[in-house]
């Protein structure tokens, strides 16, 4: 039995962008199984449908068609059991200004029917570095602390399946490491983890398997190592002192002055360097490296860069 199962799931919304009566298809017939104990990454550009999948999984939205289950429990017809098995860390930094940190955690435990949860709540506060804030009002917490509290709130009922929707957005490096150390530990204890993130190096380091989503469809689904090894060739990484010629710019990953180009072989590297020199640019700090997940991601997205035909179907 998979920990999470999406079977032919579609979700459409009425669309103000389409003509009258148009709909926006946020998810298009998505099928995906995540096995118990996996650390699974869900990647995709903004608007690809990642958060829609999570809101349907969490029961915050209803699929237009298809079936979603958590530990074998349908999220609609058997919602109570499905939600007991699921801990969701939402993307938005939300809090209740009426209550203190520890109180909020005990309320949340109560909603799940977990009684006498003080010991686990204190452990969570301790693990997440919030022990000294347990009597602070949620309003007074910094952004990073609120994020950690959201993680604690999702874990009060010790769910077997944990969903993290962009948990490290806007979070500093130290906290990211603390958080991943904790989540990794939970995964090693047997918890299934589903993660969405824009930080692809995190996904590469943590996730055993990855699905890439584009315009509401799964466009790649494989183990992280298989995705990486399927990426043939190397990457030329160098610094240039101006804008790349257009024929190279369309292929490159550009971060400020740093340019990264997929290179099949040595001839391709020579070709790129020649083109850059011809454009009158200076090349520095040349490096040839193996492709990383970001290269794979960009390649997959590029391969599926057809027209976005989800509007007004």
């Amino acid at each position: 039995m998979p920990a999470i199962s999406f079977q032919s799931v579609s979700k459409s919304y009425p669309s103000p962008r389409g003509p009258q009566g148009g709909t926006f298809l946020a998810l298009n017939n998505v099928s995906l199984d995540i096995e118990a104990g996996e650390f699974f990454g869900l990647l995709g550009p903004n608007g690809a449908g990642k958060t829609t999948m999570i809101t349907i999984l969490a029961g915050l939205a209803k699929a237009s068609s298809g079936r979603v289950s958590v530990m074998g429990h349908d999220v609609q017809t058997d919602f109570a059991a499905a939600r007991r098995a699921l801990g969701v860390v939402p993307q938005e930094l939300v809090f209740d200004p009426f209550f203190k940190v520890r109180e909020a955690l005990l309320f949340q435990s109560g909603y799940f029917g977990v009684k006498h949860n003080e010991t686990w709540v204190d452990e969570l506060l301790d693990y997440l570095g919030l022990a000294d804030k347990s009597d602070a009002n949620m309003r007074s917490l910094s952004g990073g602390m609120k994020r950690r509290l959201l993680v604690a709130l999702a874990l009060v009922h010790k769910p077997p399946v944990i969903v993290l929707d962009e948990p490290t957005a806007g979070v500093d490096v130290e906290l990211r490491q603390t958080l991943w150390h904790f989540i990794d530990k939970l995964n090693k204890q047997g918890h299934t983890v589903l993660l969405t993130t824009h930080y692809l190096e995190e996904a590469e380091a943590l996730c055993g398997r990855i699905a890439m989503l584009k315009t509401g469809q799964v466009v790649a689904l494989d183990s992280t190592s298989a995705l990486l090894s399927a990426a043939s060739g190397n990457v030329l990484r160098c610094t240039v002192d101006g804008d790349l010629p257009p024929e190279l710019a369309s292929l490159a990953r550009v971060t400020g002055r740093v340019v990264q180009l997929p290179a099949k072989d040595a001839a391709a590297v020579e070709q790129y360097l020649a083109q850059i020199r011809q454009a009158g640019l200076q090349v520095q700090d040349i490096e040839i490296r193996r492709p990383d997940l970001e290269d794979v991601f960009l390649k997959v997205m590029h391969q599926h860069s057809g027209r976005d035909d989800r509007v007004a179907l």
Partner: protein
Amino acid sequence: MTGWQMLFYKEVLRFWRVGAQTITGPILTAMLYLLVFGQALESHVKVYDDISYTAFLVPGLAMMSLLQNAFANSSSSLVASKVMGNLVFLLLTPLSPWHWFVAYVGAAVVRGLVVGFGVLAVALLFAVPPFAQPLWALLFAVLGSALMGSLGVVAGLWSEKFDHMAAFQNFAVMPMTFLSGVFYSIHSLPPFWQTVSHFNPFFYMIDGFRYGFFGVSDVSPWLSLAVVVSATAAVGLWALQLLRMGYKIRN
């Protein structure tokens, strides 16, 4: 504590923590009404023989405060949670629509009763109405606050921001409570307005509640009870149905 009991407890704690605003404030407002209207109209208005106007006002004001505060509790809690986004914590739990309903309406009943009894207790300093049928009064207090707590759930789910809720409160709840006979007997109205008043469910809540104090009322307390029970059931089912649908909270 089970899930719904915890939510009920949290909802009670939410208004209790800001008691100056949710309990003391409404009691003070009711006292101002009692002072101003009681003083101004005491010698001019006689509703029932043997009952002073100030004494007549006391139950009406207590019930009006009770109804308004029961409504405010469930509606403001839901709207605030929606606006702040923290409703998601509840939406992720296994609590059923029925659990939500019992917790939100239960807390609204508690706030309504606390404010209602508070108004009554302080008003006793000014005038002491006879407690002719206290169980009737209690019955109408519980039913009235349950009705308004349910209406608050409906308004809270419907409202997307505080403005919407304020509109609901200012253009529906306030006029209906003021035009329900809190300050007068409907027998003092022209025939047309008497007829209109009979279509206002708030009139039956106030009149039935007042019967509990004076043993006399504008209409039979049994008629009031029938109307209030039916209205409470109807609005309660409406609120429950919206919760089942996840109206404006689940997409």
